[in-house]
C-alpha cells in the first residue's frame, strides 16, 4: 500500500490522483476531528474543506521530514484555533441539558451523550490531548509536536485526563441503575 508520504510526493510530481487518494483516506477523519470539536456540523464540514484546500495549496512545499498525518492535523488544529478565536469559545457545547432532559423522561441518554457530557467537564488542556489520542489515534510524540508541548507533559496530562474521565463516567453506572448497560 502506498504510504501517505509517497502520495504527497506523487502529487508534487504532478499526480492529482495521489491527492484525491489522500483526501479519501482522511476525509472522514478530518470531518470527525472538527465534528467533535465544534457544535455545528455545517461548520465542521467547512473547516474540513478548508483543511484540504490549505493542504492542497501547501503540498508542493511539504517536507518529507514530518508525517503527512501530523502535517494534516497540524493544519486542522491551526484552523480550529483560528475559528475558536473568531467564535470566542462557542465551540465545545455543554450537553448537560440534553442529558438531564433525557433522564427527566426516564430515558437512557445514550453512551455517546454521557461521554460528551463527561468530556465537557474536563479541562481544555486535558480534553484536547485525550481527544487527539482516543479519536485521532495520534502518538504521544505527534500530539507533543502538534500542541508544542514536551512528550512527558503530554503523557502526564493524558494520564490525568483518563483518570478524571474514569471518575466522571462512573455515575452512569451507579445512581439510578437504569444506565448500567450503556457500555
Amino acid at each position, binding site marked *: 500500500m502506498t504510504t501517505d508520504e509517497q502520495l504527497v510526493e506523487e502529487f508534487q510530481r504532478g499526480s492529482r490522483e495521489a491527492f484525491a487518494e489522500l483526501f479519501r483516506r482522511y476525509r472522514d477523519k478530518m470531518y470527525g476531528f472538527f465534528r467533535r470539536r465544534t457544535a455545528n456540523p455545517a461548520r465542521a464540514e467547512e473547516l474540513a474543506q478548508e483543511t484540504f484546500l490549505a493542504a492542497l495549496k501547501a503540498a508542493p512545499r511539504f517536507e518529507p521530514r514530518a508525517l503527512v498525518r501530523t502535517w494534516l492535523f497540524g493544519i486542522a488544529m491551526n484552523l480550529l484555533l483560528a475559528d475558536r478565536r473568531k467564535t470566542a469559545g462557542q465551540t465545545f457545547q455543554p450537553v448537560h441539558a440534553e442529558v438531564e432532559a433525557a433522564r427527566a423522561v426516564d430515558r437512557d441518554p445514550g453512551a455517546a451523550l454521557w461521554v460528551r457530557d463527561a468530556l465537557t467537564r474536563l479541562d481544555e488542556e486535558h480534553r484536547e490531548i485525550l481527544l487527539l489520542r482516543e479519536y485521532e489515534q495520534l502518538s504521544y510524540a505527534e500530539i507533543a509536536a502538534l500542541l508544542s508541548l514536551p512528550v512527558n507533559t503530554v503523557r502526564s496530562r493524558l494520564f490525568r485526563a483518563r483518570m478524571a474521565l*474514569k471518575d466522571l463516567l462512573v455515575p452512569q453506572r451507579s445512581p439510578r441503575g437504569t444506565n448500567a448497560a450503556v457500555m
Partner: protein
Amino acid sequence: MNHTTHPIEREELMAWHDGELSAERAAGVAAHVKVCDECLALVEELRRVSAQLAAWQVEPAPASLDARVSAALEQTPQKNALSSPSPKPRYLIPTWAWQLGGVCALLLIIVAISIPNLLRSRMSRNLASDKNKDFEWPASTPTASDRVPKGGRAESGASTFSGPMIIRTATLVVVAKEFDAARSAFERLLRQHGGYIAQLSTGGQSSARTLTATLRVPADRMDALFAELKKIGRVEGEGQIGEEVTQQYVDLVARLKNSRVTEQRLAQILAQRTGKVADVLEVEREIARVRGEIERMDAQRKTLENQVAFASVRFELREEYQAQLDVTPPSTATRLRNAAVEGYKSATENAIGLAEFLLNAGPTLLLWGLIFFWPVRTIWRRLRRAAA
C-alpha cells in the same frame, strides 16, 4: 497502588497500554502486569475508559465535502507541478544553511556599513598629520604664538611682526569655594601678567555668586596666566581657539604701502602743478580719498596687531553652591503648591523622556527585533523539540 515504591509507574503502564514503550521495556512491563493485580486492574480501567470513549462516534463526512475539494483539485494544473521545479531540489540546501547564510549576510552588511566610516576617520587623521608635517614646531618654544610655518613669513618684511599672526581666544570656567579670595587672586594674577579687564560683570545670590570677565593679556603671557587661573578653583570648562590672520595682515600691509606710495606721488604732482585749477582740485580730492583709505587700513592694522599682541580670555568664576539655612521656611501651602508643580513638571518630563526614548530607540529595536525574531524562534522551537 503505592506508586512511590511500585516498580512500574502508572503513567508508564498507560504508555504500555498505548503501545508507546520500546519493545524491551514493553516486554518488562507485560511480564510485570501478568503477576501484579494492581497494575492489571489499572490497565483494565484504562481499557474501559477507551471503550467508553469509543461509544461517541460521529457520522461519516457528508458527500458535499468532496465537491469543493474536487473542484480545487481540478483547477490544479497537472503539468504545473511537472514543469515547475520539483520541491526536492529546494531542500538540497538544508534550512540551517539558509539561516547561516542569512547571519553571514547580516554581518557583511554591518561590516560594509562600518568599514567606510573607519576608513573615513583614518583618512581624515592622515590628512591632519600630513597637514601638520608642513609645519615645523620648534621644541624649545612650546607656546602656540611662537609657532612658525616652514616657508611662511619671509615675504612679510613690511610688517612689524616676524612670526605668524595668531589671534588667541580662550575660555575658562572655574568654581571656587571662597569667592572673595578667588576674586582677589584673579585680580592679582592679572596685574602680575600685565593684563587688563576689558569687561567684567558679577551676579548671583549670596550663596552662589558669579563673576564673568573678558580679560586681555599679552599673548606670550597667556599660557602662564591661564595655568595659574586654573589653580584658583575647580576647572569646570576650558577652551582655546587660535585664528591665524597672517594672510589678512600681509595683504593689509601691502595695500597700505601702495596707498602711501600713491599718496606721495600725488603730493609730488601737486607740488609741481602746472595745469588748470580744475586739475589741481581733482588731484587734491584724490589725495584726500587715498589719505582716508590709508587711515582706515592703518586702523585695521593696529587692531589686528593689538588682537595678536593681546590674547582674549573669557573668564568665569562661580562660587560653589552652599545650601543656606533658611530662617524663614516657606509656608505649608507654598510647599505643597511647589511640590505639586514640581510633581507635575517631573511627570511631564518623564512622559516626554519616555516618548523621546521610544521615538529614538523604537525603530532600531524594531529593526533588530525583526531581524532576530525568526532565527531565535526557530532555534527555540528546535530546542523545545529536542528537549521533548
